[in-house]
């Protein structure tokens, strides 16, 4: 693992996005292009990240571990800590920018872009299983359970794992 580029790529993905899962599309493009991670490692990291306590963004720590061992996990942890400090700058100008039409318009457009590109990246995580009926059944079940808002995420993932162990 090349320590500096590894750290900088995660830092870049965090600095150019917002929210816990926001770095996913940029990180996916950079790491897949370099052959530093597989689709599977993204899936695994997201699953662990969703199952562990704390913010959603901790999937990055799991991803760091899977692709770079303990050093990778620590680098990912350090990289994800830096960009949120820019909120202190936001705090200084918040009253001037918060109600600006242009600011809101830009943020709305960017939110749609994060959602749209997110759909593509999440879709790609299925890989060859995208046309497998077993995967489609599990996808549909998980989608319905998640949309219902009544079943905890960790239980949805546990049920999917059991279904996978039985069906595949």
């Amino acid at each position, binding site marked *: 693992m090349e320590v500096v580029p590894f750290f900088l790529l995660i830092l870049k993905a965090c600095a150019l996005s917002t929210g816990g899962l926001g770095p996913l599309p940029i990180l996916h493009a950079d790491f897949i292009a370099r052959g530093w991670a597989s689709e599977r490692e993204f899936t695994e990291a997201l699953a662990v990240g969703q199952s562990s306590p704390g913010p959603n963004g901790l999937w990055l720590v*799991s991803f760091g571990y899977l692709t770079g061992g303990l050093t990778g996990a620590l680098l990912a942890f350090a990289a994800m800590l830096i960009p949120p400090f820019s909120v202190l700058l936001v705090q200084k100008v918040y009253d001037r920018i918060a109600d600006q039409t*242009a600011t809101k318009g830009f943020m709305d457009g960017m939110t749609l872009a994060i959602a749209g590109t997110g759909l593509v990246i999440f879709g790609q995580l299925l890989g060859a299983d995208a046309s497998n009926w077993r995967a489609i059944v599990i996808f549909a079940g998980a989608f319905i359970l998640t949309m219902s808002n009544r079943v905890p995420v960790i239980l949805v993932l546990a049920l999917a794992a059991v279904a996978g162990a039985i069906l595949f």
Partner: protein
Amino acid sequence: MFWLWLRIGIQSFGGGVATQFLMRQLLVEQKALLTEEEFNRYFAMCRFAPGINLAAVTILIGRHLDGWRGVVAGLVGLLLPSSAITIAMTAAYTSVKDLTIIQSGIRGIAPAVVALGFVLCAKMARPVLFSGRANATFSWKTGLPVLFLCAALLALLSLPVFVIYAVAGIVGLGLSLAAARARRT
């Protein structure tokens, strides 16, 4: 302060929403360290900052409560134990990932992660597409094409993601300014 954040960090199974819920419960309702208004205002500020929103809000609240000591106590308490648990869970998974039953289980988890991701994307876009406000930047008629165009730019042209973010942001900015001008005239 550290113990307070630690409680939030290790109890919040279920991701960001659970963490936000616990923060509100402990800091606003039980300990009354912040007013509801301050709490909401800090969360609103985080929408404008890059990176993990919960880390950003922890920085703001920590600084409000105890200066830079509060920031360190907040980040360490919230993120260090939960990150250590995440690393331990990943390490445990790595040691058994080659077992056939685990491989099958992970093959089952992948479609569920995709489903969670799709729901998350939908929840992210919904307030923008269906706000119902007169001064909204997008309606679903203008917003959905932008969303799917962004998806197509990535899927078909493999444009760099941050370029797509910037283009969509500029489209939103242009639409909001045009709508504001139309309302004035």
